[in-house]
């Protein structure tokens, strides 16, 4: 039985193929993406897999049990404003909330900064009379005839999707249900996005924005998945197709279509799980994962095998309040462009040379100095062996570009290149800091998993800046996310708002909410044919001190909450508040308040098994290719260059050294050592912190 993870990116479609418990490990494929219809590139990728196995596409597809698919069609539709024409039915009086975005201007001193364009223009935001109070009690009945009339208007306007969001519906979905019935009856083809289905929790702007985003991308995802499912069916696919979500879990296509917004920030969401698997080989449960590509750098914290989930995201300046992994993305990549500001300070990014024209050294017409140009001038890249020798780099073009920095700063070109690398290294270190220090974690206790084409060149600099002891560079760092997809579980995030003092709330009522959520979660998983022994349910409560406006999420035992025992919840809340914000008020007796009840319903899947390589000698000299002049901490020096594919499990390389692989080059700085582990990852270790490492790493180094 074959399982395939497919990550469709902007430039490449990556496939990772696993078969059974495969001794020989997953096979990796890369084909060009086809943005006009990404399912074409996906099938091209499957064909490449079939060819490599000497079988027909149909034969391959028939043997595939599971395809896990990460797609950016919803993300791209939003970024390029290519989503559906949407109509919004909302409570009379508040139809502008969506466009107002609570009145924020993100750049306060910039009078040329305009508001985000609304995803639904005003003439399609239709007010409906009918009102619930803050507790969900009806003050004024829903104006059914107004709904009828609004649906006619939207039909005439030719909308593809209708979003419904009413005031206080989180406390009572009745009005939204009635309106939805009318829409379904009158306009059955419209994609329907109902706030209490998408996000039944308090905060009107968060809910209306999320519900509209869902409507905006719903028809796009529906079209794409229909086309993909059809294409796969015509090839005889009888297995399960699963779609990656922003939360790091996967979900069946039908559910993804209903809650399309759960895929909006799914691009980097498979990375943290993959990172966890690579460090688990060394008995470690927590790590930081970073992925440095051409334009962006994604950082995430993994604790006890899982990344932190948050519900406060934004896309195109619109609030997306669905569960997603806490991934910090900053504009730092190989293509990041360096510039000197008016005060004479050197900056890097966020502007990127992208893939076209790309850095100056690509010789495709780029003239601005990019990070990759600096890397070339510092000797980290071999102009003749970029992308495994498929692409020659133009050193002269890089010199010309970096001169633009060197001139104004009165430095040599090489000094300028050093400066560019330092600034971008610092920016990336800040990204790592944002997911660790700023959340109360000491990065010096955590291994850093480094992925992405450009990541391994800069890993040691980040490690130096943050005093990290250990980095893990996975063998296939460029198809990291596709591998992560084969490690994801089915996941459904359910939420109910119920606002009450923790000490005096109606325990029976709370128990019933938990029962309802559990029943709903189990029903969805049953539909997905998950056997009972593979169901995992996790309850979380959002709690705050009375009068606070923001909650802290704490885990809770389903059994205890059902039994009315909330003592553990209170204790966990005080502790978490103290950890996050530096103080807690249990001694003051400040009462607590419950806001949301959340259930994560998971169906555990078979995970990709990473194969072990046999142990070889620690002497790496057979893989040595030669020497190259490269910048080493404070001067240029002749540095050993190794063929990374020739290094075996156990091979130990002393820094400074360069380890070249087809899609990425690892720079092992002075004071670091790199050793290849049984999974084919390079462990890069700071000499001064070796005693702090785990036994498994120490054994490899000895």
């Amino acid at each position: 039985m074959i399982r395939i993870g497919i990550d469709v990116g902007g430039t490449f479609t990556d496939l990772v193929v696993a078969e059974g418990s495969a001794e020989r490990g997953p096979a990796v494929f890369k084909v060009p993406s086809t943005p006009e219809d990404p399912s074409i590139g996906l099938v091209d990728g499957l064909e490449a897999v079939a060819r490599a196995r000497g079988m027909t596409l149909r034969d391959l597809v028939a043997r595939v049990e599971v395809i896990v698919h990460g797609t950016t069609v919803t993300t791209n539709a939003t970024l390029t404003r290519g989503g559906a024409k949407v109509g919004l039915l909302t409570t009379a009086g508040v139809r502008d909330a969506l466009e107002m975005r609570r009145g924020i201007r993100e750049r306060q001193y910039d009078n040329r900064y305009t508001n985000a364009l609304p995803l639904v223009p005003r003439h399609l935001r239709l007010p409906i009379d009918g009102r619930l109070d803050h507790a969900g009690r009806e003050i004024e009945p829903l104006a059914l005839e107004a709904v009828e009339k609004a649906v006619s208007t939207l039909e005439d306007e030719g909308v593809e999707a209708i979003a419904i969001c009413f005031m206080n519906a989180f406390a009572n979905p009745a009005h939204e249900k009635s309106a939805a019935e009318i829409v379904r009856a009158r306009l059955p083809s419209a994609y329907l996005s109902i706030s209490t289905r998408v996000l039944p929790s308090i905060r009107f702007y968060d809910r209306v924005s999320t519900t509209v985003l869902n409507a905006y991308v719903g028809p796009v995802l529906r079209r794409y998945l229909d086309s993909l499912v059809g294409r796969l069916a015509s090839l005889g696919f009888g297995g399960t197709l699963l779609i990656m979500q922003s939360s790091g879990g996967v979900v069946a296509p039908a559910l993804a279509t209903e809650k399309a917004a759960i895929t909006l920030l799914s691009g980097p969401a498979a990375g943290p799980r993959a990172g966890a698997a690579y460090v688990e080989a060394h008995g470690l449960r927590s790590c930081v994962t970073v992925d440095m590509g051409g334009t962006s750098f994604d950082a995430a914290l993994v604790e006890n095998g899982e990344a932190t989930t948050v519900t406060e995201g934004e896309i195109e300046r619109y609030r997306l309040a669905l569960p997603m992994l806490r991934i910090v993305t900053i504009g730092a990549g190989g293509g990041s462009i360096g510039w000197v500001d008016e005060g004479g300070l050197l900056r890097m990014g966020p502007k990127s040379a992208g893939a076209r024209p790309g850095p100056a050294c690509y010789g495709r017409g780029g003239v601005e100095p990019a990070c990759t140009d600096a890397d070339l001038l510092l000797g980290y890249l071999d102009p003749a062996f970029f992308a495994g020798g498929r692409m020659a780099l133009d050193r002269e073009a890089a010199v010309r570009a970096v001169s633009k920095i060197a001139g104004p700063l009165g430095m040599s070109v090489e000094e300028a290149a050093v400066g560019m690398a330092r600034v971008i290294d610092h920016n990336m270190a800040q990204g790592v800091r944002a997911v660790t220090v700023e959340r109360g974690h000491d990065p010096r206790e955590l291994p850093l998993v480094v992925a992405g084409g450009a990541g391994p060149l800069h890993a040691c600099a980040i490690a130096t800046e943050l005093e990290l002891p250990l980095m893990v560079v996975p063998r296939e760092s460029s198809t990291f996310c596709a591998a992560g997809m084969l490690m994801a579980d089915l996941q459904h995030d359910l939420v109910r708002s119920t606002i009450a003092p923790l000490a005096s709330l109606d325990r029976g009522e709370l128990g019933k909410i938990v029962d309802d959520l559990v029943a709903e979660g189990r029903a969805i998983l049953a539909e997905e044919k998950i056997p009972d022994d593979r169901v995992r349910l996790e309850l979380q409560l959002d709690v705050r001190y009375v009068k606070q406006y923001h909650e802290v999420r704490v885990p809770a035992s389903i059994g205890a909450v059902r039994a009315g025992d909330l003592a553990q919840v209170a204790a966990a809340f005080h502790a978490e508040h103290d950890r996050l914000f530096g103080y807690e008020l249990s001694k003051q007796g400040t009462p607590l308040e419950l806001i949301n009840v959340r259930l994560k319903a998971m169906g555990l899947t078979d995970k990709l098994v990473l194969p072990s390589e046999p142990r070889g000698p620690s002497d790496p000299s057979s893989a040595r290719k030669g020497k190259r002049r490269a910048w080493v901490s404070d001067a240029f020096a002749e540095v050993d260059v190794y063929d990374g594919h020739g290094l075996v499990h156990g091979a130990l390389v002393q820094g400074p050294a360069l380890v070249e692989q087809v899609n990425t080059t690892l720079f092992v700085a002075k004071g670091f050592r790199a050793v290849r582990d049984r999974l084919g990852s390079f462990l890069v270790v700071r000499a001064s912190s070796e005693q702090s490492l785990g036994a498994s790493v120490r054994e490899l180094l000895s």
Partner: protein
Amino acid sequence: MTIDPILVSVLARAFRSITDEMSACLARTTRSPILCEAKDFVTGLYDAEGRMLEQTENLPILSFSLGPVCKHLAKTFAGDLHDGDVIFHNDVFSYGNQLNDVAVFKPIFFEGRLIAWAACKGHQADIGGAVQGGYNPNATECWQEGLRIPAVKVWEKGKLRRDVWDLIFSNIRLDIVQEDMRAEMGACVVGERRIKSLFAKYGADVLDAHKEHLFSATARMMEAEIRKIPDGVYRGEATVYFDGKHPGSRHQIRVEVRVEGPRVTFDYSRTDPQTTGFVNGTFTSSASATTLTFLQMVNPDIPHNEGLIGPLELIIPEGTILNASYPAATTFGNHLCPPNADALIRALAPAIPDRVTAGWNQLLCALTTGNDPRKGGAKYVDICFMGLKGGSGAMAGVDGYDHIGMIDASGGVLDQDYEMFEQQTPHRLVLHEYITDSAGPGRWRGGLGVRTVFEVGGDGTQVVTFGDGDVEPAFGLFGGGPGTLNKIELRYPDGRVYRTTSKDLVAGVPAGTLYVQEAGGGGGYGDPRERPRDKVREEVRAGLISQEAAARDYGLHGGDHAR
């Protein structure tokens, strides 16, 4: 010492990430919606002498006064500062903004030496005085407005001075103010931890030298921007209407802007004398207003540190409405920013027509206090942020920003979430929408204003209004038209309608009263007849411009509607 220009860049970013983190901390932990929902606070880092390293300025009017207070503290407590000290301050006669704006300063020590300060300042829900919430239009002296806290050590060497704490908080009505001051302290502790680790990493000497370099690099950027303004003397003025005591009274703010090469002087010598009421500024609230308005006319990407301020000179004589003498009432001082900004814009518009906006909608605001019977009669304080935010002025090439609010916040202060508003107050929101025809017409139109209606619930309800913009609308520029006026009305259940003044106190507002507020639009820029027709038609269709206004202001006639 040789300066490493790269390290300068690194430090500039590091400082900013620290003040941002302090800001996030405060937003997550405070109780008053004024702080956690609207973000009416600032955070900052200062060097040992009180010079600004960086600030996160949700409300810029508060931020440019932290530095002067910090310098004052450094002098006042010279030789008597210790690790573990925490100082509270709100005194308006030693560089404070407004008594409700209570600051926390934490001196930071490294290797036994004072190296920096972390500070926060936030608008507290109450500060004692005659009126809950702090706005007392009847005040004539500062003591009638609230509790004055000159620099006071509340923690000394890490030990809480319980007596001082009790003295302060027994003069403040609401318990949440204690919690929110604790949150300000927590944010300073977070800033302290981070800045100490920077010193540990780079060493004090290296850090100090590079900090000086950062200041001078920033000053050079600012000077380059000022050089872009033609040398000359530019004058502008604006009117403050109604001092809260004498209906129909008017007070002029007059500014003379002198540009000479890389330096600019803002001279307010000809501004009218202070009033007998609370409509008076303090030096720092007025200087903040000038600074933040001018910063919107230069490159918005200049880092915010001491270097920014060096090239600016301010002359604001004591005894004027912008710098009232002790012991004047001054609670309204921050809200003199909008007319001050108008005067500055009018002065500089002829010199830099492409870098100024038309007039912004001025602040008119209401603070509601009362008891919530749903919560056992608990007191609440709410500033109706969603209602006060009108439109900004348009500028060459860009329409005004809709529903952004007064220029002193520039979109940094947010609406309450509607559903949270109904949870945290006994009121019910009826309407919050853009107002048709509120935007000043123009080639580029002003930002739209909003109408807010809520039904008053609970008992003991008192409405205090403060602001302006109900006499003169936001002005247009270069052929653009004015925006609309501000207005607050109370529609009582018995049918009476009371239109408040701009500085009013209305007690005993019964449940069932409709609170109706209009925040006006911003001024337009350029001849509205040159506005692209399809844009006008689009806004007619959206209901943002009426057919009549499209014809009258934009010259769009019946036949033009054919699509």
